[in-house]
């Protein structure tokens, strides 16, 4: 049995002692210390050593995660693990060094700050020979992990609410954009630049909760974009955004008109399997049902279902054709290898 021992080169005494103790226990060991220092050679050397080992032992000491070489060893070990080489990973932790996240689901072997590595080496050997025989610390149970994950995601969501401009900043942005629009109206009244400024202004006004003026900006932008055939996609998106605002403001019939135009524009731009047209249709169907035009809603739903089916079939055909090409390529290689081998024998 051979193990790869990963430890910080700068504070390597624990790692080196652990290797000696493992060797004394009859476990063959290796590390990255003898590998060439040039980045590429070093990296392929670590990959080779990890591949040729039956397990990896990670010695963790304070400050370990700031060692770029050590961090790279961890990444290479993870890469192999995620590629299917499911070999044991054994953390050996000195003192109260925190475990990196990827090792938290493994049972850690702890060494007191001033303790020697003999007991740790025995525990590593026991873990290797009788899985889980000497864990000092059990990993958190799955439900606990899941609660911790939910709590963290809630914290991120709460933090996200602060990641937007304050009301004062928004007001300032709206004022600057309005000034920009006025200037462009004077100098470039039909320009794409003015349409873009109006759309940006609309987003800011909407964030401030001022939906009516936000919609007015979009309607003005649409009038400009209608004269720019090269901005057809932007026009379709703007119609979609305007339709959403119209619906929120109770202007259902106007929203329907904008969404139908957006749907048709996406079909023209992207073709009959346009995913964007399907997205518009999804909103349109809900609106049509609400205004009791069930016949139109059913027709849209039928077209949407056919479109989804067609997209799925196309995706499956692409997958099937890729697999077939791969299979043909592999068969060709195997046949070629067979012929070479026969040629060698003759």
């Amino acid at each position, binding site marked *: 049995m051979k193990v790869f021992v990963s430890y910080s080169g700068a504070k390597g005494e624990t790692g080196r002692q652990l290797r000696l103790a493992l060797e004394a226990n009859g476990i063959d060991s290796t590390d990255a210390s003898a590998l060439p220092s040039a*980045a590429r050679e070093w990296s392929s050397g670590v990959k080779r050593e990890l591949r040729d080992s039956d397990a990896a032992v990670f010695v963790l000491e304070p400050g370990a*995660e*700031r060692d770029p070489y050590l*961090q*790279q060893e*961890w*990444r290479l070990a*993870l*890469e192999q693990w*995620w590629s299917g080489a499911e070999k044991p990973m054994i953390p050996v932790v000195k003192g109260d060094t*925190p*475990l*990196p*996240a*990827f090792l*938290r*689901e493994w049972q850690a072997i702890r060494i007191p700050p001033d303790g020697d590595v003999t007991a740790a080496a025995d525990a590593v050997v026991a873990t290797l020979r009788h899985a889980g025989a000497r864990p000092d610390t059990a990993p958190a149970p799955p439900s606990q*992990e899941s609660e*911790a*994950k*939910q709590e963290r*995601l*809630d914290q*991120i*969501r709460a*933090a*996200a*609410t*602060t*990641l*937007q*401009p*304050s009301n004062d*900043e*928004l007001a*300032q*942005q709206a004022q*600057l*954009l309005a000034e920009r629009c006025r200037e462009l109206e004077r100098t470039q009244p039909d320009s794409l630049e003015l349409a873009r400024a109006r*759309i*940006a202004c*609309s*987003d*800011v006004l*909407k*964030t401030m909760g001022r939906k009516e003026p936000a919609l007015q900006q979009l309607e003005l932008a649409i009038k400009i974009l209608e004269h720019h055939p090269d901005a057809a996609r932007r026009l379709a*998106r*703007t119609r*979609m*955004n305007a*339709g*959403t605002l119209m619906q929120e403001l109770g202007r259902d019939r106007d929203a329907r008109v904008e969404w139908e135009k957006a749907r048709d524009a996406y079909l023209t731009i992207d073709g009959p399997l346009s*995913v964007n047209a*399907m*997205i*518009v249709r*999804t909103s349109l169907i809900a609106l049509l049902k609400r205004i009791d035009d069930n016949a139109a809603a059913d027709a849209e739903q039928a077209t949407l279902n056919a479109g*989804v089916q067609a997209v*799925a079939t196309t*995706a499956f055909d692409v997958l099937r054709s890729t697999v077939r090409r791969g299979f043909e390529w592999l068969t060709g290689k195997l046949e070629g290898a067979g012929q070479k081998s026969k040629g060698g024998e003759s």
Partner: protein
Amino acid sequence: VTIGAAATAASSHPNIDPQRSVFINCPYDDEYEQLFDALLLTVVTCGFVPRSALESGSVSASRMDRIFTAIDSSDFSIHDLSRCHGEGEALLARFNMPLELGIAMSCRRHAGRHDWFVLVPTDAPYARFVSDLTGFDLQRYDGKEDSIVQNVMGWLVTFSQALPAKPSDVLNRLGMFRKKKAELKAEWNQIPWRHLVETATQVAAGPPAAPNHVASGAL
């Protein structure tokens, strides 16, 4: 002077712990969108708050002030330099991303904290293009979403404050994230950063999609 100003601006987000903030430096255009989705969802799945120059809107502060604020209040940053190549007839390269990497490196040197991670294309001769970075560990990737997820996650989970995660946690939820993002796109021209992050947390907390869900997620 500018760093001082950035420090002041950073205090406008008192609820965000820099040790759990990751600044994302990447292109924000249609061509990069698939990779951006994967990158954002990876950062959230690993338990970090994604930060960006886009988070504070568009015009009230100068772009450089917004970048300084976001980098200065994050202990981590990810820089995708894979699109720093000649574009258009004049073959001009965009220098924003190397510039932001420089700011992050300066942050580490002067503030004594900040870890950065650089992604470059598999076959680009970066040792010649940015020779000052020779000797640093730039992560090469092939421009595909599973590759960016594995590389970025492989870096983030080496830190103790990360959540344990594996690439399938992200890849199996990307379809759902894109579906929810499409709903936001129907509403916004430029989706506010806050809504993107909130959506990513909802998707990361939810169950992974079944294969047929992934297909409909493309809607």
